[in-house]
């Protein structure tokens, strides 16, 4: 169990990167990048986890007491997700423009620079 969460994080990063390397479609590359980024969320949340501890949100009516899971890495994961979403939007916009200019989304056919 100790290894599993970190292993999943590393596997997601490598699987996403491998998908990007052998991709034949730029939209697929963007999705693979999202998969690789999910690995960083899993890694952050795994570092902050504590067995039996609830979420670090003391909603009205719930007791205010430790332990809770680590809120610092949750906040970092949250920033990570927002940045990932914005990067995805930009990459998809680029894919649209590349398709308009080159009539293809296959990265292997984008070898030559065109004006």
């Amino acid at each position, binding site marked *: 169990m100790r290894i599993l969460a970190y292993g999943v994080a590393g596997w997601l990063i490598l699987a996403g990167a491998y998908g990007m390397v*052998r991709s034949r479609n730029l939209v697929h590359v963007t999705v693979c990048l999202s998969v690789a980024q999910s690995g960083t969320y899993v890694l952050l949340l795994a570092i*902050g986890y504590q067995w039996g501890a609830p979420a670090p949100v*003391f909603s*009205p009516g719930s007791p205010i007491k430790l332990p809770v899971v*680590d*809120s610092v890495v949750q906040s970092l994961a949250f920033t990570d997700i927002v940045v990932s979403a914005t990067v995805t939007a930009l990459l998809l916009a680029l894919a649209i423009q590349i398709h308009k200019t080159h009539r293809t989304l296959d990265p292997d056919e984008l070898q030559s620079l065109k004006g």
Partner: protein
Amino acid sequence: MSRRARQAVFGTGAAVLAVLFALAAAGLPPFGGDQHPYRDRAVAAALHQATANVVASLTFDLRGLDTLGEEMILLGSVVGAVALLRPRPDEKPHADDKTSRPQQDAVALISYVFLPLTLLLGFDLLVHGHLTPGGGFQGGVVLATGLHLLYLSGGYDALRRLRPLAWYEWVEGLTTAAFALAGTANLVNFLPHGRVQQLFSAGTVPILNILVGFAVGAGAVVLLAQFLTQAITLEGEG
């Protein structure tokens, strides 16, 4: 570089990364343990500021400057997408709008029912971001999603008529500017903190939450509008 060579290069790099990652993971504190020194300090700081949602306290109070940077990344991405997706000179909007096709009744009905509910949920997430899970970023995305239910129910025309895009651009700009002003003025959590778990507590956290919520919501609307324009109304020559 051929595909085979590229995969070989990747394989080498991935193997090295996997080994280094495994070594690093082996040196981490055990999974699920009770040693979280940053957690202890962050929870103490959040309770000192009377913020029930410790993550919100971290995001908008302790790491407020980081969130300002995040907000700037969001603004940069919206500006970048608008610049990338602006219509080219040879692209004209359709003469006949192919989106006026009849919608399926069930889809339209459910969208009309969920439109007000989703907007309400979005505002609820914004206002209670310092008390319950949620906050500005989540609430803003829910608001933008709710607005786009109009597209499912009434089609693109309905969305375009009820969504004056210029307003959203202004909201995005002004709320981001307000957030940036608060950040550059070295603003600390100066408002009265109130009592923890009350609606009026946590000082500036709920205000920043609402500002960010409007910025994110407006940003998402502007962003999606560019993609919808590309997909629906533009007709390229070549």
